[in-house]
């Protein structure tokens, strides 16, 4: 098999974790098929691209231009397409982030090759084979690539970053950069604390009667903020007037299917379970070990939420800052 080119996403000059994950995905594929992994970083003035060998890259190219500090769809796509045509590549990997989901289809159209989006598993079996979820995660496609080049966007968290002693070679500015686009990203605003809708969020932190008081919902809000999650509530606390009806999860409230659902002080009445049991991963935190919520939970902690939640919030914050 030929080589694999990985577009490494950076923010403020630092390679993001999703970039390391994409390298791990590429490394596995290259080792199976026999080929090299090349990285491509597009960014502004300076980019920290050292040490990517340890994450699985054989060679890294950095393309910098002042106008490329923020993501610009057309110049980025042109740069990636140029890089792709300069080597003998079988696949082009891009992280399926907000950036990658915009960039990958553009690049695929430019290169006139197929796109396998939001891929969770890559393998080599006399050709590239990928798995990707569809139908809101209710089914998974296995697809075989039949063209010489394919663009693949890799879902965040699907692969864990590698750690090895390899160094990798860094080449710089070997592809053109700095073209004018007709859509120009001007800035990145910090999100307003507009409440994320509970049905749309990929993470939901929901609170129940175990919080004992409306004021204690600040704990749930704090954890939700740390996770970038939406706040949900059980019917009991909505009926008690602690939370607005728009946050109610359950039979008479919203039905949610997030990737992660954390139930805090919720016993798990069936009517609540009916609204959240399609969540991919369910975490329950409750002092009652016999609470029905533990029956549907993937992970549980039995204990005092007033101690557990602050600690969990702190550790999540620390993790995010890393």
């Amino acid at each position, binding site marked *: 098999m030929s080589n694999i080119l990985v577009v490494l996403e950076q923010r403020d000059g630092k390679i993001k974790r999703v970039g390391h994950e994409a390298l791990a995905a590429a490394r596995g594929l290259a080792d199976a098929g026999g080929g090299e992994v090349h990285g491509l970083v597009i960014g502004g003035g300076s980019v920290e691209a050292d040490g990517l060998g340890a994450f699985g890259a054989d060679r890294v190219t950095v393309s910098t231009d002042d106008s490329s500090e923020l993501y610009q769809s057309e110049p980025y796509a042109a740069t990636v397409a140029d890089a792709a045509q300069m080597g003998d590549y079988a696949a082009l990997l891009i992280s399926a982030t907000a950036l990658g989901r915009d960039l990958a289809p553009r690049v695929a159209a430019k290169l006139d090759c197929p796109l396998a989006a939001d891929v969770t598993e890559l393998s080599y079996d006399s050709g590239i084979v990928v798995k990707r979820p569809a139908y809101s995660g209710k089914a998974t496609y296995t697809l075989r690539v039949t063209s010489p080049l394919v663009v693949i966007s890799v879902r965040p968290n699907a692969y864990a970053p590698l750690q090895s002693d390899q160094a990798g070679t860094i080449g710089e500015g070997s592809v053109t950069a700095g073209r004018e686009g007709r859509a120009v990203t001007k800035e990145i605003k910090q999100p307003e604390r507009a409440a994320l809708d509970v049905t749309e969020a990929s993470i939901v932190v929901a609170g129940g009667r175990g919080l004992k008081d409306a004021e204690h919902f600040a704990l749930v809000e704090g954890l939700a903020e740390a996770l970038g999650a939406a706040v949900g509530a059980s019917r009991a606390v909505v009926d008690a007037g602690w939370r607005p*009806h728009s946050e*109610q999860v359950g*039979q008479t409230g919203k039905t949610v299917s997030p990737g992660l659902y954390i139930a805090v002080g919720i016993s798990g009445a*069936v009517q609540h379970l*009916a609204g959240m049991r399609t969540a991919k991963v369910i975490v329950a935190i409750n002092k009652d070990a016999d609470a029905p919520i533990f029956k549907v939970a993937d992970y549980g902690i039995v204990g005092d939420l007033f101690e557990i939640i602050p600690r969990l919030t702190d550790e999540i914050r620390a993790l995010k800052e890393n």
Partner: protein
Amino acid sequence: MSRFVPADFQPRLPLDRLILSEPPEEERIEMDVLFVGAGPAGLAGAIELAKLVKADNGEISIGVLEKASALGEHNLSGAVVNPRAFRELFPDLGDADFPFSTPVTQEGLYLLSATGARRLPTPPTMKNHGNFIGSICEIVRWLGAKAEDLGVDIFPGFPAEGLLTEGDKVLGVRTVATGLDRDGSELSNYMPPADITARVTALAEGTRGPLSQAYCEWQGLHGKNPQIFALGVKELWELERPLDRVIHTMGWPLPNDAFGGSFMYPLEPKVAALGLVVGLDHPHRSLDVHELLQQLKMHPLFRKYLEGGELVEWGAKTIPEGWFYALPPRRTGDGVVILGDAAGFVDVPSLKGIHYAMQSGMYAARAIFDGLKANDTSAATLSAYDRMVNESYIRDDLYRTRNIRPAFKDGFYKGSIKAGLMTVTGGRVFGKRITMHADADMARGSGGGVEVTPGALTVSKVDAVFKSANATRDNIPSHLIAADDVPADVAEFYSHVCPAGVYEVSGDGLRINAPNCIDCKATDVVGPRWMPREGGSGPAYKRM
């Protein structure tokens, strides 16, 4: 309170909301004929009318309003279907073309005890040779496509909330507003009601239709007996072990003083419909059809099929059971006809109503067509529909078995003997009308409840509502009208009557979870009133 009569706590039907006498909006939509309800009656009527118009080279506008967001989503039936009306409506098609799953080949009627099942001879009225098993959802979608092919305009997601009237004449209907918040204020996507006028309005609302009820009450159209109802709770199962026959049962787990029975029909060898139907005239406060169905599933007869299987859908609906003597004396008026279940065309001994519903729609279409041709849609002209029904097999079938259901008012065993005698004599024994009381007038005492141990085969009410695919917007205004200060005993009664957990006892009173409602109308019969609400609310049945 040890005993109470539900009628004492039942609000009156709000005729002022359902019968509107102000003139229609200027922005109204005008049609020639409007069917209210896209079930078998309304759709068969629309199809027959469109065919008559086409054969006559005419052109008229025919509309069908439906409260569900898509065709079939509010339809629920057993169902074993008599293909007679299909054959008459589609003479060019054969049985294999109709939307049925499979013909009935074997059937068995069983009398159950808690552990045993005794096979009974199948009474002639229950014989199903030549009939077909089908899903009413699929039947309705199929009929809807046929109607649209003929140019009928079908509007899913538009319930009617009131009849537009002038004098005694029906002018059309007003639809329900959408986009209201819980407190009645308008949301950003609020859409006001629309008035639709028509030369004839055909009420095909199905069981316990509010407009049909309101029209009959307004016009004083009461049958010799009051209309009575049963509640059917139904589940759809995917089975590990194939089912090869139609099963009906009587007896356990019902108490002796409740009328009803169960059914299990194979839609496919490994997909079965299972349900329990119980008359709402039982004397109990705690009788709960949903819970009884859960208990029924524990019986070895059903258990052996269900174990290892999966519950895929759940739903419930009332069935008019008063039949012959409960029919309104006329089903026609100035500019209006009443069809199908809304009129009460159901034959209880044979457990059938779909072909009567379709046939009534077809007869009404013929009367309407003649009325349009003569430019006269008065009660006198439309009464041709009543005559056609009275001279048809609908009347004959219902008359033959006219007293069978009433016979059971004294309980199961006495009722069975009387019913058996009536069946063999074509209704001549006990031929005199047996007087019935309305369900709400039957006093209720404590008891009738069952304790069901949750297990792999059972489903709680909340989970059941989930399986009905009910996705009602949870901030819509409540559509249920309950009396103020409902005592706890009565609240408990409602909580058992309602299969969907809409009513709960809360402290000393009643708590209403309106978005749970799946439009079965059971409590409308004996308690709080069901009113039309935003289109698309309620269940979304796929194959019930």
